[in-house]
């Protein structure tokens, strides 16, 4: 394993060198000490592949794909975040890219990292970000015909007609007297 970078500074240098070739910027380190690189949307997968194939770094495991919603801020609305792990140097890497609300599409990592399939489905389900190239981009947590994306900041926590899908498929609701007493301190009759 002598050709693998092991010291933190050697890893950081190698990451910075790659970031430069993919028009990325290395972000200041956060408290968790994970090196973070922000790359343009169309470079994200290429950068991940380069980090995977670099014989010194070998970030071979895509741990997680998730997203952030910066609703109402003067910037692109969504950040998509990738976390990678290198077994050789036992270190982690965070890659961020962003997309706007109107054009909420990011290239899919599935052709290079098959594990991204489910992760991207979850991001699609929760944030409504589409992944171009994901062969099976269906909802994964919410019902398939659900109409909203619950982790968006403009989605109310109580939901929008949460019983709608249940009713739509013939679900029976119990009749309740108007203004019925809450049961044992339970909340009143808002769905």
């Amino acid at each position, binding site marked *: 394993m002598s050709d693998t970078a092991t010291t933190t500074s050697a890893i950081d240098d190698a990451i910075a060198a790659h970031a430069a070739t993919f028009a990325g910027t290395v972000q200041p380190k956060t408290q968790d000490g994970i090196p973070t690189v922000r790359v343009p949307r169309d470079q994200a997968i290429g950068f991940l592949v380069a980090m995977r194939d670099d014989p010194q770094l070998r970030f071979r495991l895509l741990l997680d794909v998730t997203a952030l919603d910066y609703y109402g801020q003067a910037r692109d609305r969504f950040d998509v975040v990738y976390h990678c792990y290198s077994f050789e140097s036992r270190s982690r890497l965070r890659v961020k890219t962003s997309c706007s609300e109107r054009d909420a599409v990011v290239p899919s990592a599935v052709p290079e990292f098959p594990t991204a399939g489910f992760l991207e489905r979850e991001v699609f389900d929760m944030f409504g970000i589409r992944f171009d190239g994901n062969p099976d981009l269906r909802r994964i947590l*919410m*019902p398939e015909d659900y109409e*909203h994306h*619950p982790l968006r900041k403009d*989605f*109310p*926590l*109580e*939901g*929008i007609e*949460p*019983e709608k*899908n*249940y009713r739509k*498929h*013939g*679900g*029976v*609701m*119990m009749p*309740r007297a108007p203004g019925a007493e*809450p*049961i*044992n*301190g*339970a*909340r009143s009759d*808002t*769905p």
Partner: protein
Amino acid sequence: MAFEGGEDGFAVTGPLDQLLAWARKNSLWPMPLGLSCCAIEMMSTIGPRFDISRFGAEVARFSPRQSDVMIVAGTLTWKMASVARRIYDQMPNPKYVISMGVCASSGGLYRNYAVVPGVDRLIPVDVYTMGCPPRPDTLLNALLTLQKKIDKGSTHASGNPRPAVVGLGG
């Protein structure tokens, strides 16, 4: 209801509905609808330490066709709601429902888009239990309460519903 007879056997006499209630309440077969963490306490209740079989309810059936009381143990989500309702519909009459834990009773700590705020929105509940999770003792208390209600005819199945809320105490 009376026990009549002597040394070589006895007969139980009484009105038919009372006899039926007596038979039913002492062999309630649960349909364990274990949805999340509360299910662990329900399993513990069925296991040897708390031993729900002392009250005739040890035959946990995973087929709704063979069960009398549905124990909703855990957080019911709207995605799961139609399944829960369908299982309830498949149970033969008379059927009873125990809502175990605050999640099943009211949605509990989840006030959000995914969780049904109380299974009584979908199915009639006879006994609600407090606790997050309720101790096995509480579930046994709920079972005993349900037995009393079957005796008194105050369940949904007998058309005179007066739901009860039970905790640890009597």
